[in-house]
């Protein structure tokens, strides 16, 4: 089969690899019909996630048709159309029982490695480094789905792939980002990053009752989407001082909740701090550049919530802990517990309340993945979200 393989930093290729086969009784093999490139795939692409090996198949946003099931899978049959959550969860451990699906205690065979870096191990994730399991990803013609009796959601009506594909990650991730804020009617929410996760976080904040939503980015077409499709207020951080602008917008209070949908490769103006971050990241004495996170903390209203949905891999410097502590901020975060949001969000899509397709800018064949990564990374050609078809 054909699959998108990581070769070296900023280099992916589409290669022939053997077809996946059942390894555990609870596996299923899916023929992928649609798969997307996630912003977090760019962290792998750029080489900032540890324990990625040449030859690793990428991709954790995918859906398709069941072509084979293991003996332990009774709820799926060959021919079923399914979307697959990106975290792999067994459904039986304490974390799964508590609906903390991205913390499944059994799905990461490389948990020992993750424990060394993070203290304890999170769940395994498709196509997301050996640190998180070493599972081949779904940017391929076929993919093995472990615990297929737990994760995949059957799509039985005529919703298109594009309408439901983002249930695998970016839509529930954005939703969880807003949900973690415990938004009350009248709250002001600011979202850093107008990529797909930021878009869906802003959308969800509105659904959950925020009175005003402010989206911060510098890419004009993404800000335009947030303004036109979501009715959000937008700030271009290259044109203005975000902290001052947010203070102004809220008469000095700051946003009640700040959602960070940027992560470890935050871009910033050519400031001494950005140069410092970039240099430390290059010499590996800091793995992540947390510029957006720092700003979200400083901007947040006293007693507010900072919800971190951007992906971080390891360590950050110059973290404004004094601001968090002295101003009673709450930091909440996590890889999305996708499984718990699948059905509620599917219902909202079905009812027309959410139409996630508006973020798609490119539809390309799988073979064009290298080009797709390239334009997505550099935001060329107004690239906001790429859907690949194997």
């Amino acid at each position, binding site marked *: 089969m054909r699959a998108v393989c990581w070769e070296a930093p900023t280099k992916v290729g589409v290669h022939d690899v053997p077809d996946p086969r059942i390894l555990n009784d609870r596996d299923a093999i899916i023929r992928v019909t649609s798969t997307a490139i996630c912003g977090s795939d760019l962290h792998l692409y750029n080489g900032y996630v540890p324990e990625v090996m040449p030859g690793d198949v990428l991709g954790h946003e995918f859906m398709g048709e069941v072509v084979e099931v293991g003996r332990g899978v009774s709820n799926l049959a060959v021919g079923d159309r399914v979307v697959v959550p990106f975290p792999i969860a067994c459904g039986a451990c304490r974390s799964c029982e508590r609906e903390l699906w991205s913390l499944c205690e059994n799905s990461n*065979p490389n948990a*020992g490695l993750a424990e060394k870096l993070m203290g304890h191990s999170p769940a395994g994730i498709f196509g997301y480094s050996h640190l998180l399991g070493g599972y081949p990803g779904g940017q391929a013609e076929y993919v093995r789905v472990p615990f297929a009796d737990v994760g995949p959601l059957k799509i039985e009506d005529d919703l298109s792939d594009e309408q439901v594909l983002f249930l695998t990650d970016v839509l529930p991730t954005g939703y969880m980002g807003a949900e973690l804020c415990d938004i009350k009617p009248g709250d002001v929410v600011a979202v850093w990053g107008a990529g797909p996760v930021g878009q869906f976080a802003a959308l969800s904040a509105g659904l959950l009752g925020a009175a005003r939503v402010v989206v911060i980015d510098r890419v004009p077409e993404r800000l335009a989407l947030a303004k036109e499709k979501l009715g959000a207020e937008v700030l271009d951080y290259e044109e203005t001082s975000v902290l001052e602008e947010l203070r102004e917008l809220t008469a000095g209070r700051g946003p009640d909740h700040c959602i960070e949908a940027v992560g470890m490769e935050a871009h910033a103006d050519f400031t001494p701090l950005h140069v410092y971050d970039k240099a430390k990241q290059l010499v590996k004495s800091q793995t992540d550049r947390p510029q957006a996170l720092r700003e979200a903390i400083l901007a947040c209203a006293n007693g507010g919530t900072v919800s971190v949905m951007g992906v971080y891999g390891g360590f950050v410097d110059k973290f404004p802990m004094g601001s968090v502590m002295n101003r009673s901020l709450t930091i909440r975060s996590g890889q999305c517990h996708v499984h718990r949001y699948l059905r509620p969000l599917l219902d909202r899509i079905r009812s027309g309340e959410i139409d996630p397709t508006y973020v798609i800018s490119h539809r390309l064949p799988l073979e064009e993945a290298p080009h797709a990564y390239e334009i997505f990374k550099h935001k060329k050609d107004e690239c906001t979200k790429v859907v690949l078809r194997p």
Partner: protein
Amino acid sequence: MNTPERTTRRLVSALGWTSLALAAAPLVAPDRVARAVGVDDDPANRLLVRGVGARELLHGVLLLIGPTPTVWTRVAGDGLDLALLGRACRSQTAAARARTVTALGVVAGITAVDLYAARRTLRQQHGAWRPGPLELTASVTVNRSPEEVYEFWRRLENLPRFMLHLQSVEDLGGNRSRWRANAPLRRRCVEWEAEITSEERGRRIAWKSLPGADVANSGTVHFAPTPDGVSTEVKVVLHYDVPGGRAGRALARLLGEEPVQQVRDDLRRLKQVLETGDVVRTEALPEGTDARRQALQGPAAPNGAAR
């Protein structure tokens, strides 16, 4: 986990440091020490005091780098000190004798602590000879009741399902069993018989290998409910030996055999088997969690492998 063995190790190490501290004064200022304990400050006594200091130094080094039973050398040294002080008592003025008796009291106190530590090193886990000078502990939390985990473990034939080194375990009846394992560093397999020395249903199983085993070992596995009463804390304490002692262990480690890591991996697979029904496999790690293979794993891509 705080095992009695670990407490003993800490105590012995503390005594080792004490020895080093006690060595300083006699070596640096033997004249003052001699006066303090009430003996004449003459060249012969100074030499004797220096000798005591040098011996303390030796105790310290032995206790800190050697196995815990080296604490018996301190007990012997205490005996010697008591004898020397006792002899000094006989030919003295009253004032000097008071100082000597005080010193005797102090040394007797230290002797009591040393004896206590030394006796601890003799204490055995099952009230019987315990093979294997090496000890390791590992633990995992399993989302099943203690009874369930105990029952699974007690059916010894289940053990190879999650212990990667084991080929088979055969229940011979009467608490005896025959174990077959892949030998580290050797192609042949090793075999031994073991017996369950004590057990408490749903709480604990203790076993030891019978004389003649290639790899002498004994251990206890404890099953206890988590504080919330929902899951089970499984704790393994293992005593074992590897051929070649310390050097053999270092060699094995160089070749990727890390016993603690292996037991941890085993317990992780135990959790997977009990909670999900199987060892969780990936293309990169077809045998599932295994620290030795972790460093050598292939790319996360299908490789044509199947069960």
